[in-house]
């Protein structure tokens, strides 16, 4: 099927299947799934600037579904989500402007693809290392009916150090169990996530979710829900600004989202049966799969259609 806006020819069934898989990932891990959707679109032959903008558009529809589900489960810290959304939007615009510069120099495909691969391998390696450290510590997470979920990390001391950073204004986040944290820490984390989102597409949950857990010290299940809530707002802005710049093929996003809608429902329900370290450990191979797809497309120039 021809998608006239991006000038690509893709079998829509592939798009629905990819949407379904990233929908499950989005609901389960709290990430938009751009670590798979972006590389898959690139592998289907979509130009990288359209990959970035279209993936953001598809994330909007999906995050609405998943965020609502997590809100019902009590996994969303609204205060944190709104603060983060403001800084993320500024970051998204920065990332979108970088894409525009690369488009003018005709090297958007190669630069974004290489950046994608570096980020995906880095994130996967870091989470694998952290999970290994946590499991080595022998701490066990437990979910008991009627009690809040407990979440352990081998590098929890990093979050504690950041919470000791006293640059006013200091705020408290009771829903996330954080007594005091500098507003600037949250804004910087969100801005960086926003730049990745505007530059690489999707919600950049692969950066923001680990940052929320390891730097801000938000429990994993709250980080998952809050990230989706925040992405719902910032990805809407990202879709708008990228559409203005001619980087969104909305028909591809609509088709992908049809598969994602049901996948997100299944993924969000799965979080009830797994806790902290297991969610993080299951995340490890997925960015590597995305990186593999990009490397294959870059090296061979072949596209799956």
């Amino acid at each position: 099927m021809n998608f006239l806006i991006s000038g690509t020819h893709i079998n829509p069934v592939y798009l629905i299947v990819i949407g379904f898989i990233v929908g499950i990932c989005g609901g389960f891990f709290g990430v938009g799934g751009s670590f798979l959707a972006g590389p898959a679109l690139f592998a289907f032959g979509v130009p990288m600037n359209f990959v970035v903008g279209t993936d953001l558009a598809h994330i909007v529809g999906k995050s609405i579904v998943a965020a609502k589900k997590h809100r019902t489960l009590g996994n969303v810290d609204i205060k944190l989500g709104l603060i983060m959304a403001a800084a993320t939007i500024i970051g998204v615009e920065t990332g979108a402007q970088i894409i525009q510069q690369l488009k003018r120099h005709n090297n958007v495909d190669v630069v974004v693809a290489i950046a994608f691969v570096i980020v995906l391998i880095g994130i996967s390696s870091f989470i694998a290392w952290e999970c290994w450290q946590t499991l080595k510590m022998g701490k066990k997470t437990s979910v008991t009916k009627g009690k809040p979920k407990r979440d352990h990390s081998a590098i929890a001391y990093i979050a504690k150090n950041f919470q000791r950073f006293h640059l006013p204004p200091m705020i408290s986040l009771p829903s996330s169990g954080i007594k005091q944290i500098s507003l600037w820490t949250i804004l910087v984390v969100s801005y960086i996530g926003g730049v990745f989102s505007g530059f690489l597409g999707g919600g950049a949950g692969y950066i923001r979710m680990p940052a929320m857990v390891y730097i801000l010290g938000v429990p994993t299940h709250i980080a998952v829900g809050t990230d989706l809530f925040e992405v719902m707002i910032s990805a809407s802005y990202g879709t708008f600004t990228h559409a203005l710049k001619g980087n969104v093929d909305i028909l591809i996003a609509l088709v992908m989202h049809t598969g994602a809608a049901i996948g997100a429902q299944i993924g969000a329900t799965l979080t009830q049966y797994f806790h902290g370290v297991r969610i993080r450990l299951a995340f490890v191979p997925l960015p590597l799969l995305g990186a593999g797809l990009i490397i294959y497309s870059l090296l061979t120039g072949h596209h799956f259609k």
Partner: protein
Amino acid sequence: MAGRSKKSASLGSFLVELAVYAVFVFAYFFLVLHFLGGWLKHVFDQNKTLYAFVALGLIITQGVGLEMLTTGLLRVIRSRER
């Protein structure tokens, strides 16, 4: 034995609902592709601001619409299981 037949009945019910959902979704996106494809391309070429509003509106409407549909279908599945 009774548990197993209950499980297979639930699975059957789930698959029926999934098939209904798939038919809805396929019908929907073929309609979207056929009726909106040309018009969206025209708007994309002529007026990027309008295109940005339309694109955002379409994906939000689809997000909310499909969420209502999936929630409704899951509710039907659960009530049948009970």
